[in-house]
């Protein structure tokens, strides 16, 4: 019985990043953190990039796709828009994981630029060309910039969490 409790606890701790990702997609997190006309950041990108790069067993690609669909419904975007952008971020993270031998905060951080810019540009391109919605490029730029700036902060939190739950580093 004691073993079962331990297994469940470990399982829940491993599931926490996935639960957080689903929660911020389904709740109003992204829209609640939109201050001073410019400040917003994409926590989904940060979670996806970090965990797929560091431990891909935590976040399944299927769940990434599902979170994208949920986000599209919440933000009234055509279905598949966010999924494509999230999968692009996952692709960059998976590529960096395959191409690098040992990653550090700085290698992660600077390769994250490609993921953010690619992901946001993909969303912007799809919205501008395939829907009647209009978005401001400047807003998307600020969103990308703050996501990039805040990455080291969340990197630190996730590193601590990873040590806390005793995951091995995937390299």
């Amino acid at each position, binding site marked *: 019985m004691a073993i079962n409790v331990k297994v469940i606890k470990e399982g829940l701790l491993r599931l926490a990043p996935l639960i957080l990702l689903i*929660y911020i997609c*389904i*709740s*109003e*997190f*992204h*829209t*609640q953190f*939109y201050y001073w*006309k410019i400040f*917003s950041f994409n926590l989904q990108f940060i979670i996806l990039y970090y965990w797929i790069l560091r431990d*891909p*067993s935590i976040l*399944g*690609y*299927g769940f*990434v*796709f599902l979170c*994208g*669909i*949920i986000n599209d*419904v*919440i*933000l*009234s*975007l*055509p*279905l*598949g*828009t966010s*999924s*494509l952008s999230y*999968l692009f971020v*996952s*692709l960059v993270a*998976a*590529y960096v*994981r*395959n*191409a690098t031998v040992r990653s550090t905060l700085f290698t992660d951080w600077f390769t994250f630029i490609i993921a953010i810019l690619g992901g946001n540009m993909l969303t912007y391109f*799809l*919205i501008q060309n*395939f*829907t*009647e*919605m*209009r*978005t*401001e490029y400047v*807003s*998307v730029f*600020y*969103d990308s910039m703050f996501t990039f700036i805040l990455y080291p902060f969340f990197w630190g939190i996730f590193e601590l969490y990873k040590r806390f739950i005793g995951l091995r580093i995937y390299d």
Partner: protein
Amino acid sequence: MATSRDDFGIAIRSALLQRGAKQKFSLFVLILISIVIFAIDNTQVKPVKVLRSLINDSIYRVSAISSSPIRFTSATKNFFVKHVFIYEENEQLKSEIAELKKKKFDTSYLETENKQLQEIVELDQKLAFMTVGAKIMLDKNSPYLNSAIINKGSNSKIKLGMPVLSKGHLIGRIVEVNYMSSRILLLNDLNSKIPVVISPSGDQAILSGVGQLKPSLEYLPDNFYPKDNNLVYTSGKDGVLIPGISIGQALMEDDRIKVKLFTDPTQIFLVNVVLEQQTDLEAM
């Protein structure tokens, strides 16, 4: 150089196709599925619309429940902030009341005069609206969207394009209708464009959302400069919105003519969707 290109090819192929120990799908397959779903959703075929409507309804409900802790935190913060500034607000309100009392006498005279004039020209008096009340389930204010989701849909006879009021003032229009929920496109959204008329000058303009709290006025006459008494109403020129719904007050800000909305779009909770217009007699 060739080796470096090979390495890139191998790494990208591996990232796209490799499923790994705990992955059930490869990235390549999921990207393909996303593209297919995106294409199908853009076709706007009726069965797809119905399916999307069902998905929307269910996800909105779950979202409303799951985002309640965030909403509670936000409401608590607003509550405390309001209390901090309550003294200052009280003083301001006192002076406003005094001013309004003064204006009341003038208004009473003007009302009587207006009634007499209307009787003279025998205007068709259409003032009241038949509305359906709804509650805001989710409100979205992001770089991509300024919209709100309400808990009434086609089951309450709500249709696309219907105007939405809060405290009697226009806040937006319906842009998405599901069976049990609808989405309001708020006036401050980038995609919102509404024909308006400015009182008392009667100038026509387009109220255009700029993604900020105050939408701006476009296509105004060249010599137009906003004054204190310039109020903005719907003109109904598009043939969709009912004319004469109050919107806000025109003002100059950042070298642009903007409109301070009578109802703050970030503070709405209960709204009325205008189903149709009624005559005075029907309303009575």
